[in-house]
């Protein structure tokens, strides 16, 4: 039952991804100033939004784990955080690829970029923390606490980075550009496709996590009785 539903979800995701790619490469016109380089935005922006949602999801799972102490929430938290780290890595890479020809530099200390970098660092730290925390219950509790702290920290980082930057001259201002309707539709398709992709990955990762726990429990039982 669970599997067949996941298969359907995977097929829909694949189809939607093809539509989004078609939109990004064919349907949307080249941007007037940046040309074809701008097309990376149809991947970059959805990834950035969904990456952020993934971390919010991990925080949410953390809160519920602390309230209920149920394993499922811990597994949901790590699934969301892992995919979030993957997505935000891609965000930083695609952003750099775009910035190189347009801004003439791979990286700049713009508040948005700083926030995303720190977000990435925090959740990489989360994964390291999980690896080092030892026994299961404690690991789950620590991970939940850190997921909450990390996510609450995000607006604070953004605020302070903006404040610190406002004092020194800002070289690059906001990159929001008015979008033509076809571009907006392409962006929307990308957003839907990547959201579905996130959900597919999340469900798969969650299932693996729960199966692992089950296997570990069974193996533990074997030792006790044997």
């Amino acid at each position: 039952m669970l599997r067949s539903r996941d298969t359907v979800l995977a097929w829909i995701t694949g189809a939607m991804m093809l539509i989004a790619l078609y939109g990004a490469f064919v349907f949307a016109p080249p941007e007037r100033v940046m040309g074809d380089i701008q097309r990376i935005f149809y991947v970059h922006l959805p990834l950035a939004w969904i990456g952020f949602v993934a971390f919010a999801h991990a925080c949410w799972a953390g809160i519920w784990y602390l309230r209920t102490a149920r394993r499922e929430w811990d597994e949901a938290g790590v699934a969301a955080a892992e995919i979030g780290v993957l997505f935000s890595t891609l965000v930083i890479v695609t952003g750099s690829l775009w910035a190189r020809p347009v801004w003439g530099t791979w990286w700049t200390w713009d508040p948005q970029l700083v926030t995303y970098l720190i977000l990435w660092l925090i959740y990489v730290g989360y994964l390291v923390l999980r690896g080092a925390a030892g026994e299961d219950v404690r690991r789950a509790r620590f991970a939940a606490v850190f997921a909450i702290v990390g996510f609450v920290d995000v607006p604070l980082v953004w605020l302070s980075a903006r404040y610190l930057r406002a004092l020194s001259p800002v070289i690059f201002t906001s990159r929001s550009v008015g979008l033509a309707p076809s571009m907006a539709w392409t962006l929307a398709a990308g957003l839907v496709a990547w959201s579905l992709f996130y959900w597919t990955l999340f469900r798969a990762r969650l299932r693996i996590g729960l199966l692992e726990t089950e296997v570990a429990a069974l193996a533990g039982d074997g030792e006790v009785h044997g």
Partner: protein
Amino acid sequence: MRILAALIWKDLIVEARTRELVTSMGLVAFLALVIQNLALGPSSRLGTAAAPAVVWVTVSFAATLGLARAHALEQEGQALQGLLMTPVSRSLLYLGKWGANLVVVLVLQTVVVVATAVLFTGDVGRHLTWISLPLVLGAVGFTAIGTLLGAMTSATRLREVLLPIVLLPVALPVIMLSLAGIGAVLDDRGLTELLRSLKLLGAVDIIFAMLGMWLFAYVVEE
């Protein structure tokens, strides 16, 4: 309030007897200052410009080291287990630990700032009173979140190595706002500018403290 004072006092007495933390943190900080000074070279202009950055780089790394050690000591002596058995709320335990850590980090900051004023000829020494405000509020926030995360990492396998990895990115807003405040003082941008950064810094401190009081119980519970 009396309990809180007793909790802080206990940690400070332990520290006063051994002076282990303050000595090692102070020495590490001093070494870091010497290396940074040598790295920046003899140009005094460069040193003056870099002084606020040097102060925070040194303080954040040395303080992280100290926090990790403080919590490791507690873990080794199983002092926390004893405290958890007393009828004191977890939030109060957190505040006690935070208070003690704050005092230690403030001592460290004093050492670093004085050493910076001496080693890096420049404005830091002249503006000492005003600079101390963003520095102290920065230390408040840094230790507020550091106490929570330190209690957590000291119970893991990686311990001292893990604390900087999780603490430094989270503590970054405090460091950035404190730097903004110091910058406002050194560039003579006036009191309003300084107060604005202090207000933001205070707000972040309060958020960190609330997170600590809320989550500390989950971190120390067996």
